[in-house]
């Protein structure tokens, strides 16, 4: 699968409080959470982001809380994926568990805000639109791919429970 989207740039150590501040965690409604996505980093982000856009960041994206509200807010705000130099562990796990594609790429400094990127989720290849330069992201471990292919962790559990595979 390949997507093309516009880049929104953030720096290193984007924490879960920046992604979705705790003051909004008295709800778990994705639409409500989406309205406040990245609010304390860029108050206009949620209002201006377009479906299919891409978050690009530095190292340790998603550090801090275990709140699944963070990947939920990003997904519900319409973002197609997050590309960062590295991800915090729990955020990485949560994103795969719920099917938000995230890619680790050391070259994120070269992806400028407002420019378009094409990302191939199967090969991990990232291309700057209007430029021939291609970048590769770290391959997703086979186990994680399996998890994504079976539709996320809960689908995997459903199968184990003998429920229908939807």
């Amino acid at each position: 699968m390949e997507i093309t989207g516009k880049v929104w740039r953030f720096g290193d150590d984007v924490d879960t409080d920046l992604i979705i501040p705790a003051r909004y965690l008295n709800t778990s409604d994705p639409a409500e959470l989406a309205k406040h996505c990245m609010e304390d980093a860029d108050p206009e982000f949620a209002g201006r982001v377009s479906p299919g856009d891409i978050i690009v960041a530095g190292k340790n994206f998603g550090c801090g809380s275990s709140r699944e509200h963070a990947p939920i807010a990003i997904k519900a705000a319409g973002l197609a994926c997050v590309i960062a130099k590295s991800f915090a562990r729990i955020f990485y796990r949560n994103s795969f568990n719920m099917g938000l594609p995230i890619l680790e790429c050391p070259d994120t400094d070269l992806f400028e805000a407002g420019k378009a990127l094409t990302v191939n989720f199967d090969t991990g290849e990232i291309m700057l639109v209007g430029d021939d330069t291609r970048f590769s992201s770290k391959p997703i471990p086979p186990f994680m791919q399996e998890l994504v292919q079976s539709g996320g962790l809960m689908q995997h559990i459903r199968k184990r429970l003998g429920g229908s595979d939807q």
Partner: protein
Amino acid sequence: MGMTITEKILAAHAGLDHVTPGDLISAKVDVALGNDITAPIAIKRFRDAGAEKVFDKDRVILVPDHFVPNKDIQSAMQVKTVREFAREQGLTYFFDGGEMGVEHAILPEKGLVLPGDLVIGADSHTCTYGGLGAFSTGVGSTDLAAAMITGEVWLRVPEAMKFVFTGELSPWVEGKDLILYLIGDIGVDGALYRSMEFTGPVIDKLSVEGRMTMANMAIEAGGKNGIIAPDALTEEYVSGRAVREYQFYQSDADAEYAEVREYDVSTIEPQVAFPHLPENTRGISEVGDVPIDQVVIGSCTNGRIEDMRSAAAILKGHRADKNVRLIIIPTTPHIYRTAMEEGLFEIFMDAGAVISPPTCGPCLGGHMGILAQGERAVATTNRNFVGRMGHPESEVYLSNPAVAAASAILGKIAGPAEVVGS
């Protein structure tokens, strides 16, 4: 090749003789924990999966501790979901009302998490129980839901880092200072995806509470878990509380570490983490003049009885600066009562403190001490991210309880020695 304590616990819970970093395993959990923010989503996932019963009503533990007593209608609705689920499932351990405590303080206190356990919790500070010699780690709500159903979790066996602490602790230097110093050294992603093992003669002498404080902040360095091998002090803490059998594990002498770091604590002074990351640490003598508006002493990091006593030792006979709001939060009903019976409440109230019921409220800008624009707080909590305790243009400085207490008295960030002498 030998195994680390973390690898041994993971292997035992996966039914394997041996594990190696990078292995993906499915392991049995001893406890699966959720709170009022993370459990509602887990309960929804549980129901969506078609599950009807939790795998074990003694091992799924829910603690609504962030927005209770309910701070608004939405949080009340959210906590109601958790209460109803706990009743429906007949959960043995559900802490509410006057029994409620901060999750990572109340579980060890009640003997519900034990040495050798494998614990997952939908809260990043679940790593606290490493202070007892358990493998414990934070996960999201979906992982919690899966564990509530199956009693298992999939895990990647982490590489290990060993931190050896030697030397003599200076006055007023506590577990909090050691972990802040360490995070200042390796950075907030310095232990990313890794297990952090704390050892050495200083750790051997550190109280079990201080050990839990250190393990609590492993996540602030990106660690998967923090862990300290259990010993006689651990035995003293858990015996008489434990609701189950437990087992002590130790790392083998030939266990493999990706990295080993040694710290001579003799040169470490009380630490303060400046905004907006826990890695921005400075020794108290390097802080300069930083006036403050609020002090919070509490949280899963530093709200235990030892912390209450440390704060009281500084506050005794003093009053908080008139421009500082001092909030003290004993983190469990037992700690609350103990502090009261020891006369600490008198000291706190004479110092002008507000004594809050147990809650995580202010730590994450939930309630009970939200900062306004431009305000600064010194807190014994674990994070000082942008907007963590309120307005995005407020600031949080992290410290140990003695530094927080001294700062309250002097109205600016200050060391205990400035109040009680050295």
